[in-house]
């Protein structure tokens, strides 16, 4: 069993010394602060050597699977290769050691990055103005909805409802609620697309926005997107593009051209930032010109002479959704990625993503159920429901994939497909990997007949076996309890 860093700790053990008392600063806390402000006990932190820190985190890192170690076809998350060059450049003091409140003349390089990256994203999305303040996709959804709300409010009425598809990601309804809207679900039809008839029924002047991702979470492109956009606009509602699936259409279709009014990008997905075990991401939003004035402040703008500056002078702005200007270092990674790809690379990326997904689907579709027999884009959803009577769930297949050396796909999402695996291979994997993964899935399908327990007890090769999530929720042990003074 891996020890926690606290379990390596012993009072007084240390090697790292952060500061040496200088002569210049010789006063003690009790000389400087009233005693009620001084904490009675030092904070309970581990007491270990620098070597132990390095060894501990090195060893636990090896308990992880990442894109760097294994195929990681986690649908909807675009777990593609993250170029190491971005890590290298963003560790440069020139970029990482800049204070956000530097006078502008000291941060021209950083402002240039923000400005230029915005212009690239504007071109890719067909939007008029991009801002980087949101810290992740969901944050960008919220910001977009607040912009939409500000727009409607300026037009006299914030409206009441946001429509999201039943296949939508959970953040879509959650963001809508957070923006103060009632969430209405529109059904998917038998093709896995928005049921336009149902949508028409739902539409009225209280609808503030429709949120869609296209291709949707099934990996299917909404054929009626123009109709949907027209319908929305007909009622004065705006259309928001959830950019989580932008990877599929890079260069091919632009959300702006499809009729979307706002978009949130997930830089960490489409633009190849490492996902960091959960983050940081970056969720910039782009809007059409009529919404620009509602964007968060400040805007990064360029003076006549070429100098960049921060413009706070947008009185109708929704304000701010986080401090400062966004996750700058993530933006910088997107900048690097985009410059490396360039015009051509953008097209090749979506081509590779869609080709890989379709090729993989072709290799496994005999053994798994395909809920919708449509054309797919960069990902697809299959179901294990035919194995239900053998007692096998999607979860079991997922866990068994681990034994074959693969990170499992997303499971149980979107909610409209039962027992589903949502598979996104991404463009950075080669044919051998795709085929090996298909072989694994197909051979697991055979194992279900022969030895279903192999799946139910999976994974077998991991440092811990299948973990009891119910126990965790019941006992709620959320920290290591103090064992010493």
């Amino acid at each position, binding site marked *: 069993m891996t020890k926690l860093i606290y379990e390596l700790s012993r009072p007084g053990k240390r090697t790292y010394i952060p500061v040496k008392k200088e002569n210049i600063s010789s006063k003690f806390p009790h000389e400087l602060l009233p005693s009620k402000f001084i904490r009675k006990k030092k904070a309970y932190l581990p007491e270990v050597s620098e070597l132990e820190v390095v060894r501990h985190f090195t060893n636990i890192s090896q308990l992880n699977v990442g894109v760097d170690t294994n195929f990681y076809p986690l649908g909807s998350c675009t777990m593609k290769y993250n170029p190491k060059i971005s890590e290298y450049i963003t560790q440069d003091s020139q970029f990482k050691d800049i204070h956000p409140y530097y006078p502008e003349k000291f941060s021209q390089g950083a402002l240039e*990055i923000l400005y230029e990256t915005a212009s690239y994203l504007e071109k890719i999305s067909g939007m008029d103005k991009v801002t980087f303040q949101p810290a992740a996709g969901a944050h960008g959804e919220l910001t977009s909805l607040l912009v939409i709300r500000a727009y409607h409010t300026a037009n006299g009425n914030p409206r009441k409802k946001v429509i999201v598809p039943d296949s939508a990601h959970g953040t879509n309804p959650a963001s809508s609620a957070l923006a103060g809207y009632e969430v209405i679900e529109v059904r998917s039809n038998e093709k896995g697309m928005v049921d336009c008839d149902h949508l028409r029924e739902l539409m009225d002047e209280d609808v503030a926005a429709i949120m869609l991702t296209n291709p949707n979470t099934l990996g299917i492109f909404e054929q009626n997107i123009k109709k949907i956009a027209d319908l929305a606009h007909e009622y004065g509602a705006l259309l928001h593009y959830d950019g989580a699936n932008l990877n599929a259409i890079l260069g091919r279709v632009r959300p702006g051209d499809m009729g979307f009014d706002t978009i949130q990008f997930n830089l960490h997905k489409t633009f190849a930032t490492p996902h960091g075990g959960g983050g940081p*991401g970056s969720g910039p939003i782009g809007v059409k010109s009529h919404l620009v004035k509602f964007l968060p402040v400040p805007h990064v703008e360029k003076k006549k002479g070429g100098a960049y500056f921060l413009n706070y002078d947008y009185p109708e702005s929704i304000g701010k959704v986080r401090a400062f200007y966004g996750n700058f270092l993530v933006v910088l990674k997107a900048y690097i990625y985009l410059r490396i790809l360039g015009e051509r690379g953008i097209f090749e990326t979506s081509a590779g993503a869609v080709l890989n997904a379709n090729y993989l689907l072709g290799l496994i579709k005999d053994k798994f159920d395909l809920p919708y027999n449509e054309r797919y884009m960069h990902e697809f959803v299959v179901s294990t429901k035919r194995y239900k009577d053998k007692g096998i769930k999607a979860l079991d297949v997922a866990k068994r994939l681990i034994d074959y050396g693969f990170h499992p796909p997303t499971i149980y999402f979107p909610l409209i497909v039962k027992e589903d695996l949502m598979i996104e291979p991404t463009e950075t994997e080669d044919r051998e990997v795709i085929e090996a993964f298909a072989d694994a899935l197909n051979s697991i399908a055979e194992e279900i007949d022969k030895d279903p327990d192999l799946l139910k007890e999976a994974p077998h090769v*991991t440092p811990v076996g299948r973990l009891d999530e119910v126990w965790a929720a019941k006992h709620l042990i959320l920290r290591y309890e103090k064992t010493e003074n």
Partner: protein
Amino acid sequence: MNYVPHTKEDVEVMLKRLGLNNIEDLFSHLPSEVLNKDKIGLPDDLTEKDIVKELHNIGVKNKDILSLSSFLGAGAYFHFVPPVVDYLSGRGEFATAYTPYQPEVSQGTLTAIFEYQTMLSYIFGVDVINASMYDGASSLAEAVLMATNIARRDKFLISSAIHPEYLQVVKTYTKNKGIEIVEVPFDEDGKTDIKFIKKHLLDVAGVAIGYPNFFGIIEDLDDIREAIGDLLLVTSTSEPLSLGIITPPGELGADIVTGEGMSFGNPLAFGGPYLGIFGTSKKYVRKMPGRLVGQTKDVKGNRGFVLTLSTREQHIRRAKATSNICSNEGLCALRAAIYLSLLGKEGFYELSEYNLSLAHYVKDVIIAKDGFDLRFASPFFNEFVIKTIYNPDKLYNYLLDKDIIFGLPLGRYRKDMKDSFLINVTEMINKRDIEKLEKALEGYHD
């Protein structure tokens, strides 16, 4: 360059298997009226050597901080980040994994976050810290939402001595939820006006206090706790290094603690990515936003870690979730865990003490000069407000020319503080910086 590994032959074979002739066929089902027929308009692709050169040229347009004496803080603190933090958090196994939905292949992330939760909970003196929020400002905003939700009241008091950008974020988050935000003024000592609070408790869910506040001042949290009875007390800490010395907000009765964790092993980074800290007591844990890692057992009874209480989250609860947060700032939290492990109990205390002591020394240096005085006579940690009799713009630029950033000119946020600067002193300020400042201020006049 691109990152698609296929050979021409691969593409042919794969397309053939799909019954397609060329790449465009993959997109042929897209309605032609939306299909893009043009160029996108991106610049040409670059090789790695060219992008490195190009970014070097852009980078030099940013000022090298080691050539400066910067007294800028105000929510973003220049602390030393030990290279161990960069190295370990940069390991691909950590950096290229995602949210640990599959715990058996994610024990690295889960263990580290569990450790992060533990460390932060003891630093803040609360039962539970979540796996991170976007930043200090959005953490505070979520705390206000959570508090109004718990109390089922839609009025909330906020100290106007809180970080002004945080305040803006709170307003943005709450505005459309029908929540009324009342700003509590601060008194002549730079502390939140407790008398005002007492007078405005009707229908209020709680109060949010900066701790230390925007001016670096350590508020009388105990008095405020007492003043508000059983209303909810929310705190916001943008310099959590202060908690090495000062009494943790949880111990003083804060119900929800929030903060900005960038000080713990994350670089200034022109404002992001940063690390939103969010904690509360066990009784409120089910109302909490954000992810939580909990301990559990595997099939053989071995200890392991998993995400827990996911039923609060958007991917399960959707519109009724406690928050919409999904991707968080996991890697920043990992960095904090590594950083705090490295400092350890003693190092954390020492560094905190050093900041406290050095800041007071610098304060003395400055106010010993003619025309400079302390604006607020209250206890502070590593940040304080200096007021001057001189023209603030001229003074600021004069010092800038000498590569000294004289903190944050407060006129930017408040008209009535045009004569004031928020000065921060961390361990990165050394003797030479102080001497440089001292010399520059010596005999300064407009």
